[in-house]
Structures are given as structure tokens and as C-alpha cells.
């Protein structure tokens, strides 16, 4: 996995053609609310437990 692959996969997930422009990103860094953090932690834990079949 390279940095480019991470970027490509992220763009695909968000259905974007390019990353947000620097001005747009610098407008403000939102603080993730509790339910978003909980969802993130749950996915982290599930990812450790259930690996998927690779290539």
C-alpha cells in the first residue's frame, strides 16, 4: 500500500475526483462528535477481528 493508493481509495469512497482545495480544508478542522468516534472505534475493532481474503 502506497500513499497514492490511500488517496485513490479515499477519493473513491467519497466519490471525489481530487482532494479538497487547501483553502477549503483550512477553513476549520471539525471535532468529531461522540457517535462518529464510536463508529470509528467499532470499525477499528472489527477490522482487527475479521480479516478479508486478499488477492
Amino acid at each position, binding site marked *: *500500500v502506497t500513499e497514492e493508493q490511500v488517496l485513490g481509495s479515499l477519493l473513491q469512497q467519497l466519490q471525489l475526483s481530487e482532494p479538497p482545495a487547501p483553502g477549503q480544508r483550512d477553513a476549520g478542522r471539525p471535532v468529531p462528535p461522540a457517535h462518529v468516534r464510536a463508529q470509528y472505534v467499532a470499525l477499528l475493532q472489527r477490522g482487527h477481528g475479521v480479516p478479508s*481474503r486478499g488477492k
Partner: protein
Amino acid sequence: RFSQNFREVAGRFLVSEASTHLLVFGMERRLPPNSELVQAQLRLLQEPVPPAALRQHQRLAPRSDLARVSIEWLQVRADGSNRTALVDSRLVSVHESGWKAFDVTEAVSFWQQLSRPREPLLLRVSVQREHLGPLASSAHRLVRFAARGPAEGAQGEPQLELHTLDLGHFGAQGNCDPEAPVTEGTRCCRRETYIDLQGLTWAQNWVLEPPGFLAYECVGTCPQPPAALAARWPFLGPRQCVASETAPLPMIVSVQEGGRASARVVSLPDMRVQTCSCASDGAPVPRRLEP
């Protein structure tokens, strides 16, 4: 014919109907521990059709002498329900006789995925019409496979050949030694690779979590099977060190919604290597058995 890479299991008939046979193979301890199943072959001895029956068939259906032989893996669940999976199917001619080989690798792979204690391997052999319709022939009625047990001489009984590779010699070695540099002689292993998202310009103030992650990569080389063994499977390429299991990477990203930034969770598939394995290019990836 027991050897390291060639194991043979004798089967016995449970049920024999005109067109369906159920074979049962006791499999426990047949597959060596820490070995990879390369191929499993079911060998059935097709008996010659008596000349008189063949002449009669040719008189009645001169243009069709084929029957379809299908092999299904059968699981009888604890609640009594059945599950089947078609693993091989091919046409055989009534004019042929002798050993016929069927690829039942997938059936053995399914059996390996069952929880212990595992039931014997059940294979259902069906001999069907080549096709349906008004012109369908009855050639399937003439195709017979030998079912002789040990008491009558073991020559014709169904055989299961298991071809395996010892992973101690031909497999990957887990995680790489962080102290040892990777050279041409390094056995396939999983090496730590850290992707630093905080240090990437495009990720700043966009990827909120994680700041970085261990992606891992598969490095090193894989020992190749002996030439004599490789010649049995000419369709398989050389064994290479590849990611055999991966895990997704969750992220919290900043997205613009209604003119303001908010946080959202996404999951990027196959971003982290869980295990590296030596695998041949062209080898089928075994299907996962659904619960």
C-alpha cells in the same frame, strides 16, 4: 501410495442408485498439519459398456453417446438439513472406459473449513443426461463406475488423491525479522511499513483520524516446488509472496455539508496486510464457506 506429496484415501459407497452415488471419505489425519492443499482429485473407474448394450444404444440414439457426470460436495448439518456445492462437472462418452479424474479441490477446501469434530467428506456423483429435451439420449444409463470394495479387490474402488505442499518448506514465515535486511534469500514475510498521514500535504485537515497506520507489506521470495511436482500443474505460475489476507482501514475525514465542515467515518478496503503467503499465479482462491 503414501508419500509426502501424494496421499490416497480409499472411499466406500454408501448409496448406489442408477444415476447417483454417494461417496464417503474418512479424512481426519489425512492432510498433514501445516500443509497446503494444492489439488484433490477424485478418481472413478468407468466400466466398459457391454457390447450388446452399446449396439442397442447406437441403434436407438446414433448421434448421442455422452452423459454428464457432476460431483457435488454434500454437508449434512446437525439439524438434519443438507447443503450442497457443485465442484466439478464434465461429459463422458459411453465408448470410453478406465479411470476418470475429477477436480474436487474445492470440496476438500470446504471440508477443511468445517468446525471440529468434522464429519467425513461426502461427495455425490450424479450421472445425468447430456441435455434435456425431446432428442435427449439415454446414454447416461450406460455410464457405470466401479464400486468394488476391499473384499472384492481394491482395484476399482473410488480414490481420492490429495496433493499437498509442506508449508514448513514452501510457505511464508510470518513477520520479518526487523533486525535483518531483506535480501534475495529472504523467505516471504510480512514487513512493517508505516504510512504517515500527518506528513502528507493532501491529508492535512482532511483526514482527522488516524494520524498514520501500519500498512505492512509482503517481501522476500518463495521456494518453488520440485520440477516433477510443478509439471503436474502446468497451468500454475511460480509461487510468489503476496498478501493473502487484508483488513480495511477506518478513517474519520472532514467533509463539507451545507457549507460547513463535519466529521464522517469511511472504511478503505484492503489497506492493511494481515498475512503474507506463497501462492501460485493462476491458482483459484478457495471460496469461503458461509455459516
